[in-house]
């Protein structure tokens, strides 16, 4: 019953379906790395982002570009406001990590309730219909959604990569991530860096929510209950601080889940993920990080020098 066609299909569709997880994981991981915040408020931002898009598409019937722009603006606004009026305040006060933890979670809950208040609790899709045109290539169904998702994600990841590693501002982010006080001493504004990273996250989130909402309906509570956990797990599996690897981990995790149905009952699929996290964390506490290259670092042993040194004195 298992044919290559089905495996190929699983790989392709699973890959496409992993794209928004990838975006969310990278956004989460980036904010964790630079702003040093376990930003569970991301779920709240995701909700706002989604419903901004929803209003633009469904209520105002805007065209694609203005609708996305509107969604992005709202997402940016919420994100920056969070950074400026909440994270910064807690940071200045030297609040404990727990306080921030709670704040971010409660903020997400608050957003969910607020949106439920405004929009009701029904699941909503961005377009009235969930069906996309499908083309068949060699027995593999390729929906236009898949193509769009993969292209959007790939482009965004590429841009982010270029930004981080090829621009000066990317370097600033890296510096602030590592030691924000020292970065200030080298003229880098940490506040600006925090703003930039949370804005990048906002872009990724908007894209991710658009992809999600064109594939399935969203309850206001879905980001908090489901999407975010996934991003957190991917972040950890990749090892904290490996932003791009978090994206890869998200894709891998999602694919593993998709494929695992071929061997285990689907009701145990989620368990597989949990066991995986538990085991990975305990046996590879730094994530699936490759051992760092130390090959470049060689120095002669002091023994070579000692040959020439006469034994100066006895004990």
């Amino acid at each position: 019953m298992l044919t290559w066609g089905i495996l190929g299909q699983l790989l392709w569709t699973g890959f496409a379906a992993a794209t928004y997880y990838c975006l969310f994981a990278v956004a989460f991981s980036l904010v964790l790395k630079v702003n040093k915040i376990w930003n569970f408020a991301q779920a709240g931002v995701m909700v706002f982002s989604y419903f901004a898009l929803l209003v633009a598409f469904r209520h105002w019937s805007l065209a694609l570009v203005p609708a996305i722009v509107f969604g992005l603006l709202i997402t940016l606004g919420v994100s920056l406001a969070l950074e400026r009026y909440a994270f910064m305040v807690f940071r200045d006060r030297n609040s404990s990590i727990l306080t921030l933890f709670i704040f971010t979670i409660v903020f997400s809950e608050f957003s969910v309730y607020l949106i439920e208040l405004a929009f009701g609790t029904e699941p909503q899709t961005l377009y009235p219909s969930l069906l996309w045109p499908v083309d068949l290539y060699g027995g593999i169904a390729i929906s236009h959604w898949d193509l769009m998702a993969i292209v959007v994600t790939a482009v965004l990841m590429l841009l982010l990569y270029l930004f981080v590693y090829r621009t000066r501002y990317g370097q600033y982010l890296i510096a602030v991530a590592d030691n924000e006080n020292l970065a200030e001493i080298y003229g880098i504004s940490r506040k600006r860096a925090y703003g930039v990273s949370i804005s990048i996250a906002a872009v990724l989130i908007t894209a991710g929510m658009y992809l999600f909402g064109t594939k399935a309906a969203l309850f206001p509570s879905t980001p908090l209950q489901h999407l975010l956990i996934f991003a957190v797990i991917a972040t950890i599996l990749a090892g904290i601080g490996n932003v791009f690897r978090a994206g890869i981990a998200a894709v891998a995790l999602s694919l593993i889940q998709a494929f695992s149905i071929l061997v285990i009952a689907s009701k145990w699929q989620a368990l597989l993920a949990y066991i995986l996290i538990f085991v990975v964390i305990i046996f590879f506490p730094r994530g699936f990080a490759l051992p760092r290259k130390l090959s470049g670092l060689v120095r002669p042993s002091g023994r070579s020098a000692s040959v020439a040194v006469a034994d100066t004195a006895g004990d």
Partner: protein
Amino acid sequence: MFEVQNLTACYGPLIAVNDVSLSFETGVRMGIFGHNGSGKSTFLKCLVGGVKDVSGAVVFGGSPIVADQVHRNVMLGIGFVPQVQNVFPNLTVEQNLHIAGSKSNSSFLEEAYALFPLLRERQDQLAGDMSGGEQQMLAVSLALMTRPQILLLDEPTAGLAPAIVKNVLNSLSRINSELGTGLILVEQNVLAALDVVERAIVLKGGRIVFDGASEELRAKEDLWAWF
């Protein structure tokens, strides 16, 4: 030109720097001495705006140093090596240097390597994995990368081997004479530092108790009594 007027810095109820007024030219070579807890590090931090709870004024080259705006203040041309946490621990040596130089220019990289050849060997090592003294070398090079008009160094030689100490102090005087970079040096190693500086300040309980030429301080029989 640094002008400090009635500077007072507090940590809660504790007054760490108490009503200090002082001024010096950009090209100065000055040492700040004092016993542990006398407020040296705090004073240095105030010069870049790194302490929040301050009163009084600090002006550098006509521009005020604003508290809690370190990144702006340093762009006026100040280099600062803090006493602790003075490297980016999870970045490689090379990345450290690039970041330090990114706001000015990275051309000083070669000179930094020439000053501490070890750093070139360790280009790819994570700064946090290096020994205490190696980190100290890196920290000094980082500050040099910005090509500042004035360099504030908080115990730059602590933990360095004697050979390196000499090397660092010599290079600092060279940089001062060749480029006109000012030096403000906090040191416990008073005698070695007095060789480099021309003006000395002694802090006690946050106040200035001595301000004069370094020779004058050296000449004092009761050097330690000043502390």
